[in-house]
C-alpha cells in the first residue's frame, strides 16, 4: 500500500531560551517535535504560536548546536537551537 505523500515521523529539537525570549516563554529549555526538513523560521513560527510571541524572526539571530547559523538552515533530529535576541555585552 502506498500514499502519495509519505508521512515521515517528526524530528525532535531541543531549544534554549535566553533573555527576553526566556522572559516570553517562562522557561530556559524546551523539547519540540517538528516535521522533518523544517527550517529555523518554521521552528520559530511554532514557538511564536505556542507562547504568543509577536517579535518577528528578523529581529533575532539564531544558533544551532552552539554556533550562529543562517535562518535558512534545515533542522536535523537532535539539534539544539537558540533564538538570540540583540546582545548587550561589553
Amino acid at each position, binding site marked *: 500500500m502506498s500514499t502519495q505523500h509519505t508521512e515521515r515521523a517528526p524530528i525532535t529539537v531541543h531549544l534554549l531560551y*535566553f*533573555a527576553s525570549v*526566556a*522572559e516570553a516563554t517562562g522557561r530556559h529549555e524546551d523539547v519540540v517535535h517538528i516535521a522533518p526538513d523544517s527550517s529555523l523560521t518554521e521552528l520559530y513560527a511554532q514557538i511564536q504560536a505556542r507562547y504568543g510571541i509577536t517579535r518577528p524572526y528578523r529581529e533575532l539571530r539564531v544558533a544551532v548546536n552552539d554556533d550562529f547559523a543562517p535562518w535558512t538552515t534545515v533542522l536535523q533530529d537532535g539539534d539544539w537551537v537558540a533564538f538570540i535576541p540583540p*546582545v548587550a*555585552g561589553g
Partner: protein
Amino acid sequence: MTKAPSTLATDAHTPALRIKGDTDSAYHLAYQDGFALLDIPIDAQRLKDMLDDERCGAFACFEGWVRNHNNAAAVERLTYYGYEALALNQGRAIMSEAKARFDITHAVAVHRIGELAIGDMAVWIGVVSAHRYPAFDACRWILDTIKADIPVWKQEYYADDSSQWLSNNG
C-alpha cells in the same frame, strides 16, 4: 521599561547566570583560547600576567565597568546573562581573528556574567604587541566585536524597581 520579571521568568534565566566549569578552568580557557566567561569578579592581574612577553613593548587594556546611570536613569545594579557554549565558540573565533587582523603577540578577553554592582568590572580585554598602534587597534576591535557578537544580555535595575533589557544595537 517593564517591571521586574516574575519568579517563573527569573528561574528561566538562572542557568544563564553561572558558568558550567570552575574558576581555574575558566582562566585556563582564557589562556588557551583567549576568551572565557566568569561568574565571579574578574582578576585583572591574573589575566595580565598571561600576556607578559619580553618581545612586547606595548600593552593596551580596556575594562568595562558598571555605571551608576544609563542615559537619565539611575542604575542600582544589573545582571548579565550568557549563553556560555555559544559565547566560548564565538570568543575563540574573535580572538583568533584579532591575531590574524592585527600585528599583535597575544590577546585575552573575559566577560563576567551574573549579578553585578555599580563599579564592578563586566569585561576585561588586554593586548600586547611589539609596537603601540596594533595593540590599541586590536583592543578596540575586540571590544566592538564582543559587543556585537558575544551572546551576553544585560538587564538593568532602577531605583523604582523597574528593569530593562539593554541592547548594543539600538
